[in-house]
């Protein structure tokens, strides 16, 4: 099974074998336009993708944060300053003015 990501509307690109993702952790992928995505898989096997850039520091590190869930919603905590980002909406849970881009993902 392959994991695919949609970097722009109607376009899909293959990222890697689904098995490359450890549940609870992320990996980074390079997108065609030079941006970076962070992909995650939760315990149940669902995959998520958001942009890799931590908006608080500018570093491309969100893929290296820890995935967690609160109230049934998945989030990742930035490994630098620990702000949490909702993986489904991209919203920062610690600062409502901040959010990151969410990319659609699918396994085929």
């Amino acid at each position, binding site marked *: 099974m392959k994991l695919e990501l949609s970097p722009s509307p109607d376009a899909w690109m293959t990222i*890697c074998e689904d098995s490359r993702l450890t549940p*609870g952790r992320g990996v980074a992928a*390079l997108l065609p336009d030079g941006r970076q995505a962070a992909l995650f898989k939760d315990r149940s096997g669902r995959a998520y993708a958001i942009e890799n850039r931590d908006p608080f520091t*500018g*570093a491309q590190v969100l893929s290296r944060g820890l995935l967690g869930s609160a109230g049934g919603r998945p989030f990742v905590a930035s490994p630098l300053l620990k702000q*949490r980002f909702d993986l489904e909406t991209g919203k920062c849970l610690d600062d409502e003015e901040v959010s990151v881009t969410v990319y659609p993902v699918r396994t085929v």
Partner: protein
Amino acid sequence: MSTTPTHTPTVVLVGHGMVGQRFLEALADRGVTERARVVVLCEEPRPAYDRVQLTSYFSGRTPDDLSMVEDGFMAKHGIELYVGDPAETIDREARTVTARSGQVFAYDTLVLATGSYPFVPPVPGKDARGCFVYRTIEDLLAIEEYAKTATTGAVVGGGLLGLEAAGALKGLGLRTHVVEFAPRLMPVQVDEGGGAALLRTIEQMGLSVHTGTGTQEVLTTDGAVTGMRLSDGSDLPVDMVVFSAGVRPRDQLARDCGLAVGERGGIAVDEQCRTSDPAVFAIGECALASDGRVYGLVAPGYEMAQTAAATIASAEEHSFTGADMSTKLKLLGVDVASFGDAHGTAEGCLDVVYSDSRSGVYKKLVVDRDGVLLGGVLVGDADSYGMLRPLTGSVPPVSPEQLVLPAGAGAPVALGPSSLPDDAVICSCHNVTKHAISQCTSLPEVKKCTKAGTGCGSCLKVIGQLLPAATDKGLCGCFSYTRSELYEITRTLRLTSFAELIDSHGRPEARGGDGCEVCKPTVGSILASLAPVIKASGYILDGEQASLQDTNDHFLANLQRNGSYSVVPRIPGGEITPEKLIVIGEVARDFGLYTKITGGQRIDLFGARVDQLPAIWTRLVDAGFESGHAYGKSLRTVKSCVGQTWCRYGVQDSVKMAIQLELRYRGLRSPHKLKSAVSGCARECAEAQSKDFGVIATASGWNLYVGGNGGATPRHADLLAQDLSDAELVRLIDRFLMFYIRTADRLERTSTWLERLEGGLEHLKDVVVHDSLGLCDELEALMAAHVDDYQDEWAQTLDDPDRLRRFVSFVNAPDAPDPSVKFVPERDQIKPDLTVLTIGTRLERV
């Protein structure tokens, strides 16, 4: 000014200091900012900041950290703030204020919150280069700059602020004198006995104190300070002088426009903080309150801010009739507190005094004939301040003697906050009662709803004690157990996975979920510490364990601000051969890494990309290095001095012992990092007493100290046992470490753990020296299993192609380096290129 059909009332605030900001918040709370235009004239080049914590600038807090204005506050409430633009004149007839920039603002209500200025005695030379005052961030920046070229400094004034300034000068590396005119230090706050205890302690810290001495002249050469002439005729050679001889209200603006001021200064106000002109208010340090006093503390200023705001909003009848002058501060690490009638001025009152000059402790309580507590002075040990101040005005539940005796002498007193009446004021900065606090369930909630604990912080301890029943001690939103409880659960049930643990012992709502960034690494660490006994994998990145580790553990390196990593090979005891040094140099050169020697006697290599880590480790491992675990909550280094082998004073081989200890405990996962050191004699060159466990050689063996800490909250380690043989030493450390790992909370260093441990050091001795709980065999067995099981995590990773697969920047482009990890040159090495990162970054504050 433009005329609008409906007149919008305008409030102009002059002075944006601590009290001014509090006033704005109070206006906003009462909705005044919605219906009125609010204009603020701020003289300083930055919005209001925490002046009380000013000195913390020298311990690393930036001006931004000190800001008191929440992000977006002004915009949210539509407040117009003019920074760096002071008010110059007031025309009360026309009701306008003119600012330095020439702007004219019409007001309906004018509020003066101009604070104070430092009083500088009119001695010759007071304006020379090298003379400073201590009031604003700009003052501190100037002092810091000048101190770079100075070696000796003097502070004129031995009061609260003077001693704070002296501490700052000393912290800047200056030999420091304090010159105080009064016969004792802190004459306003403490009595003679307290002053004497303070003097001894402060002198022991290396400050020279001259009490009962005036300053006659500042001596200068070419316009720069070279010394001071004292009232006894002697000359004191100094390079800089800081005046801290009290403050005076800034009332000039008010005087100029004919408002009533006090004989000794201060803008006269009534109980509603109105000046002699009902359209003008004055609050904070510039005001002369209706009780005839000018308050030089922030809490009364805050109360005035509330009063003025309430009056302006005409919402409620609020009045300010006077305030408590209690203070507690940690001066240069000495606790000093005074509260209530500290000097015992009430008629017929009695003193209860405890004084121990050896330890610099002095405590005095003032009570009346009926036993009502009126006030007191505490020097050297002010732990009980948080409890005693709220009891003022009532009869304490235990006798005053018991309240001043140190814990451990006679019957120790368990005076808990439960004995306080409901209306006792716990937070005097914000005037919050016990009742209000007990309505909340957590500290964040207390801070948010009542503001208690957000001022000077001296009430935090009591607040913590008031919350226990309500406080959820659980590790995080996923577990209601503490770390040590989870350790016990994992150990006894031999659970080997996080999923099992959260599904069986998580909070109901967290079961089946993914956990969070708090519990996952904590459980990861517990599994790693217990791996040999619960038969979990000893490699922290196997299977599910990989998903639990923080990024540092996950990549076996330390994440730095631009997404690159640093690499630290182990150099046990700080001993290294020339060949190995050369290898480190070559690796750094070949991979273009920045090198820095750490405080732990080893070498840190910065600037590696994720995909370079395996190649760097290969070179290091081939040369005989292994992981230094700088990334883990585990043993860092065991520092050593050269000891007996080379040093003429040494009495034992400290290097050999340090190496033995470092190799024994390397890789041991613990609640927080562990640091250690071994000194070859009592001169203590390795600074062992600032470590989690420190060893000092004696003529007949080793002394073991535990619970020390450096960093932000230094703590001297406690002596656990003396004159131990090599084997006894190792056995005792085994027990100590395992007992700590078993019982400590998440991220609790040994120092805080030991402070929290019920029964403290004595209890620890009972458990690990006298085996009072019969645990020692088990603790030793756990450590033996760790030692047997140890493997180098770098070598383990390099041996396995599967494990190496994660070390790529991009999963879909394994050969592409991360373009955002860039460097620029700095002092012949590299540093992160942050410009690559800032593009589009949200700016915190403009």
